[in-house]
């Protein structure tokens, strides 16, 4: 019985070995190799020049994650309080954009945010730009929205918001209603029911939401290229350049990947530890 079951896991073990463990090992080996194949630490030494890219990437990913949380939590909470019909429809609407290719979605944002894109045309029509010029004494033809950090953050939020909503929603919707009734029975008003019961019990969903938004945000590259116009170089772009772009240097790319991976893993670990403690902290 046990043997049979463990035999069933063999394909997964092979899969994991081939596509997860092997690439990581290769990244590590590459990171410590020089161009001619010898051992070296110089890849890491070179990285100092890119500190600003690291900071920018983590900053933008943090901002995007925070915004996703601020939008995602209330949406999940309100959704879970509605009837099953509303929940089903809302769920489809949230998932709908994800059925379209990631690049297409981002392209459409480009045409919305461009200098003579949809939004600017709209602002022109309703006289918003003229009003702005009047008030601030400027002479703008359009608002500059594309090729800014804001646009990059917007792209991240737009693309990754469902990953925040889904885990939070699925935790909240499963919350045992009798716990909420018990809290009300014990004298908790709506605010306290939320603060002392719903929030701490939905924390696991929040943590996995944060993880699922933060990790892809930190390593994203297409968004920054398309909406940041290449001016706002992010870690993902940097790594891409080392492997595919003009600055061909896979060893350096591997080293940057490795460092990024380690930072992300440490962040997640710290956060999950904090999360375990949080349950106590919230109630104190």
């Amino acid at each position, binding site marked *: 019985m046990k043997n049979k079951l463990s035999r069933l896991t063999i394909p997964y073990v092979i899969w994991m070995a081939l596509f997860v463990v092997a690439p990581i090992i290769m990244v590590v080996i590459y990171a410590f190799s020089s161009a001619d194949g010898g051992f070296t630490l110089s890849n890491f030494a070179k990285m100092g020049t890119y500190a600003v890219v690291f900071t920018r990437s983590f900053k933008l990913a943090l901002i995007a994650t925070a915004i996703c949380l601020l939008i995602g939590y209330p949406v999940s909470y309100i959704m879970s309080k509605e009837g099953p019909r509303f929940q089903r429809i809302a769920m489809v609407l949230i998932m709908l954009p994800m059925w379209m290719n990631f690049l297409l979605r981002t392209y459409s944002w480009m045409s919305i945010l461009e200098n003579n894109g949809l939004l600017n045309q709209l602002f022109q029509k309703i006289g918003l730009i003229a009003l702005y010029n009047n008030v601030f004494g400027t002479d703008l033809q359009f608002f500059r929205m594309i090729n800014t950090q804001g646009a990059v953050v917007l792209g991240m939020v737009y693309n990754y918001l469902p990953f925040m909503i889904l885990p939070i929603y699925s935790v909240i919707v499963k919350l*045992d209603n*009798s*716990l909420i*009734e*018990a*809290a*009300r*029975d*014990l*004298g*908790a*008003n709506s605010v*306290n029911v939320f603060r*002392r*019961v719903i929030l*701490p*019990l939905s924390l696991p969903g929040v943590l996995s939401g944060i993880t699922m938004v933060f990790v892809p945000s930190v390593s994203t590259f297409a968004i920054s290229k398309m909406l940041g116009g290449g001016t706002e170089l992010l870690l993902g772009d940097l790594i891409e350049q080392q492997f595919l772009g003009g600055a061909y240097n896979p060893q350096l790319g591997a080293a940057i990947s490795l460092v990024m991976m380690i930072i992300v893993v440490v962040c997640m670990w710290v956060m999950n530890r904090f999360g375990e403690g949080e*349950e106590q902290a919230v*109630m104190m």
Partner: protein
Amino acid sequence: MSKELIRLRDVCMAFDDELVLDHLNLYFNDKEFLTLLGPSGCGKTTTLRIIGGFATPTSGDVLFDGVRINDVPPYKRQINTVFQKYALFPHLNVFENIAFGLRMQKRPDPSDPTGKRMVKIPEEEIRERVMEMLEVISLKGFEHRKPDALSGGQQQRVAIARALVNRPKVLLLDEPLAALDLKLRKDMQIELKRIQQQVGITFIYVTHDQEEALTMSDTIVVMDKGTIQQIGTPEDIYNEPKNAFVADFIGESNIIDGVMLRDKCVKMYGREFPCLDGGFAENEPVDVVIRPEDIDIVPVEQGQLVGTVTNVTFKGMQYDIIVDFKGFKWLIQTTDHSPVGSRIGIKIDPDGIHIMKKSQYSGMFGDYSSFSEEYDELDDASLAPDEEESGDEE
């Protein structure tokens, strides 16, 4: 005398046009242990939820101390609930679970002369009261455990402590012992009764276990299909059931068709039996309840009725025997062994006969034909004579 605390006045509750509570009229006295007893789905939980404030009746009033509280939210009622499935907070340890209600409370600041400023209960007092509660439920030393690291009985006690620590005027308990094994259940029944007497508050207790209701209650309310069948002390309910439903639900009963010839005389099986009841019309058809333990076995020639034993079950304290009287099977509890197939006579004292008016439940309960068949499968096959089947077909 104890005074009235809660009253349900003409309370109806409907879910999707299905009437779940049908014009309930009921009052609860201060410091009383009142039990709502009835089969599954009869509306016990719904009644509690209305009192607790978790459901609003479709029509009718809920009064607390004479004030209508239909629209008062649960957190403003001086009522606490022990839920059917405990509903302990999984993220809080035992101490914090019990302290939850106290942390929610605000009361007038004693140092404020206007008495308007509200303050939280100080931490030392919370600690003291929680520890005191832990003592009451004998769970000292468990305060740092999370609920999922407790046994069912321990969780149960924490749920009770969590409600009691707030010193409510009324505690609602929804089948709190349903998940416990028999031994623990008996212990907790005694424990709960002790706690109720010690703290001196009203308990409104829901159960579908009639024995539990009889042991613990001051007053029992028997419900079926959203209506009250009978209200009374355990003794009243047991000795003077109002209809066949109550008689059958509370304890074992043989319920036989009879005719009331005149006061203190009822006719069954074509024979007259002296009894103590009166006030019926002449020749009124009635249901006659005879409890299995009120029947004496006598030699055939002295019997008021004569029947054949079709089944015997040893129950420790007594034998449960099934006796066939002209096709209608009775349950009799006796300490004497009568072998299967033997013919016996029975005698019933006048005070062992209880007369009830006919009701919608007449003819639905009180025949033990199916009872004996259930037992056939459990007992040695040789104990079940063929005669029994032929008896059924008559």
